[in-house]
């Protein structure tokens, strides 16, 4: 089903609410707000028709700053809430904004299944690689060795390669961007919104308060655009999976010079494919089994069960 759209573009600021973000100064997530408003403006979305769903965490407060409908759900449940919205109001652009702890830890069970079913949802994850709202604990995307309050001598786990996982789960649009690159981020989110189907954008988004490793300073000069610089074609799943399996190489010093990223973090669209959405399949099913006129022929149905 087509989204409700405006005839004319609204300026991006029209998508912001009057509420000022309560994030710390310098938070990467501010860049995501700006990028979302630009993307919505370019896509001519109607603010009175957008729904934004989130879970729990610093980044999950984002819907409050937006001029759109917002549903602040339980921890990890942003995606199933969005699924409910999709089924009830398929003409509504449905955006999920949440963090790495929310989506990849407590809400992890929903991520592969929402992707696999190909709901027309745009999922923007602000990945600061730790839990910030509860003041610095390791999340599934934290680096090995990262020091959080529950492991003061460093994380003994390895980080979760969410890009590779998303492609393997059947997401039909998988991208990574960076909150310090507003142009790339806005274009990527716009492409994700435009995509019909489950679109996942992992946004590398530094937390200046707690994460002293994955900082803006760290990312400066360490990003590589897989589409523009490496000429990656997002329709090539095999190439996408190959690239995705190196997405975390830069975490490990021994892979500093390894191909294809040579110690850099990849940004860009890894994978994109057109596929029937869940909503379309539901509509097709309803169409197929809807009786042609009025009441079913009960006598005929009952006759089948008579000896």
């Amino acid at each position, binding site marked *: 089903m087509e989204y409700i759209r405006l005839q004319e573009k609204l300026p991006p600021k029209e998508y912001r609410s009057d509420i000022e973000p309560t994030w710390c100064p310098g938070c990467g997530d501010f860049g995501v707000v700006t990028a979302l408003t630009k993307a919505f403006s370019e896509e001519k979305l109607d603010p009175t028709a957008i729904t934004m769903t989130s879970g729990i965490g610093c980044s999950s407060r984002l819907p409050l700053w937006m001029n759109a409908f917002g549903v*602040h759900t*339980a921890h*990890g449940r942003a995606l199933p809430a969005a699924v409910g919205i999709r089924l009830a109001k398929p003409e509504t652009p449905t955006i999920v904004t949440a963090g790495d702890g929310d989506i990849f830890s*407590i809400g992890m069970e929903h991520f592969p299944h929402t992707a696999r079913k190909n709901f027309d949802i745009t999922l923007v994850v602000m990945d600061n690689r730790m839990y910030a709202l509860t*003041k610095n*604990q390791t999340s599934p995307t934290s680096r090995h060795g990262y020091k959080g*309050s*529950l*492991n*003061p001598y460093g994380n003994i786990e390895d980080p979760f390669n969410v890009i590779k996982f998303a492609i393997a789960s059947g997401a039909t649009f998988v991208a990574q961007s960076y909150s310090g690159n507003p142009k790339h981020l806005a274009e990527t989110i716009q492409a994700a919104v435009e995509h019909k189907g489950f679109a996942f954008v992992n946004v590398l988004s530094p937390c200046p308060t707690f994460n002293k490793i994955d900082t803006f300073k760290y990312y400066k000069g360490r990003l590589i655009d897989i589409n523009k610089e490496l000429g990656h074609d997002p329709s090539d799943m095999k190439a996408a999976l190959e690239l995705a399996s190196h997405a975390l190489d830069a975490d490990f010093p021994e892979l500093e010079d390894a191909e294809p990223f040579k110690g850099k973090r990849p940004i860009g669209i890894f994978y994109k494919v057109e596929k029937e959405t869940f909503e379309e399949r539901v509509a097709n099913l309803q169409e197929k089994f809807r009786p042609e006129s009025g009441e079913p022929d009960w006598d005929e149905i009952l006759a089948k069960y008579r000896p």
Partner: protein
Amino acid sequence: MAQTKVIALTGNQAAAEAMRQINFDIAAVYPISPQTELMGFFAEYVANGEVDTEMIAVDGEHSAMATCIGAAAAGARTITASAGPGIAYMVENLYVASGMRVPIVLLDVNRALSAPLSIHCDHADSMLTRDTSWISIFSENAQEAYHNIIMAVKISEKAMFPIIVNYDGYIVSHSIEDVEILDDETVRNFVGPSDIHRIPYPLLDTDKPVTYGATAQPDYYTECKYQQHVDFLKVYDIVREVFDEFAEISGKRYDFIEEYKTEDAEYIGISMGSSFGTLKDAVDRLREQGRKVGAIKIRLYRPFPVKEIAQALSKAKGVVVLDRADSFDGIGGPLFKDIATALLATENNPYLHNFIYGLGGREIHEEEFMRAFDRLERLEKGIETRENFVEYLQVRE
């Protein structure tokens, strides 16, 4: 008697200190305010090798409780802690744990439930656990939280039921007070070594292989639940026994309920958790006016101290139950219904009224509790009337 020292600690620090002294085998953790800080303090003990605990950061509270069930069934002394929505998320596994009869300690740093989202204190989270067949104890302050955790290990392992120790989020968890700490040796002797044979059927006892939680068809499910029912009634004696043993090492004697100036009281207020101090202040101020009022604190919440409550209310003219959670059921708060039921065990039939207070961290003042007593007395005397048993004590209408 133990060597003791008094130090200034927050509720979370005091709880972490108890956990250090007990030296649990396994701790499963997931961050949630206002609990996170507690496991942060404990993580330092783990990291510095001051305890033998294996600590695992899991992917959510449902998994935290599942991890505890596995560890406890294997024979490990096991703990987790959570709050509010985290407790709610655990509930399915709380039933599994108690049905399997594994001893686990769960610290509930009481927090309100969503929606709207609130990280502050009320008892809605704990009320979700009241029918789970977990033993449940409330703490008024950091000192009680510290003592309750030490006693909880022993109660849980003797009863073979899991146990929840509640203390109020932020009000207790983040406020600093003087806490009397026992020496390590006394605590470790009190709880005893964590030998896997201290529980009847540890998974790792290869001479007695068992399965936990297998399917029970209609021909046996009822018998399993009846066994659980009968054994849960034995918890009263076990708790009393452990309270007595604890009095010997600490000099601090606890009971299921705490009574304050109830002996000649005509009107009695009842609360749980940190608000009891405020309630006692309200009683004192009303006593200065010559009013015969008293207060009761519930320490052992599950199993509910029916006989003790009936006895304590056997002469009261009126009782006001102060609930830090609403049941939204047209009757009254959860504690109100417990008290009303307990009154069946006495011939006395006092006038009963219910107030909801302190939701989502709303501060409570003694004037408000005094107002609750006023309303109770006027209702009892027929000066005022009511439409419902339950009213809100602090609300902007």
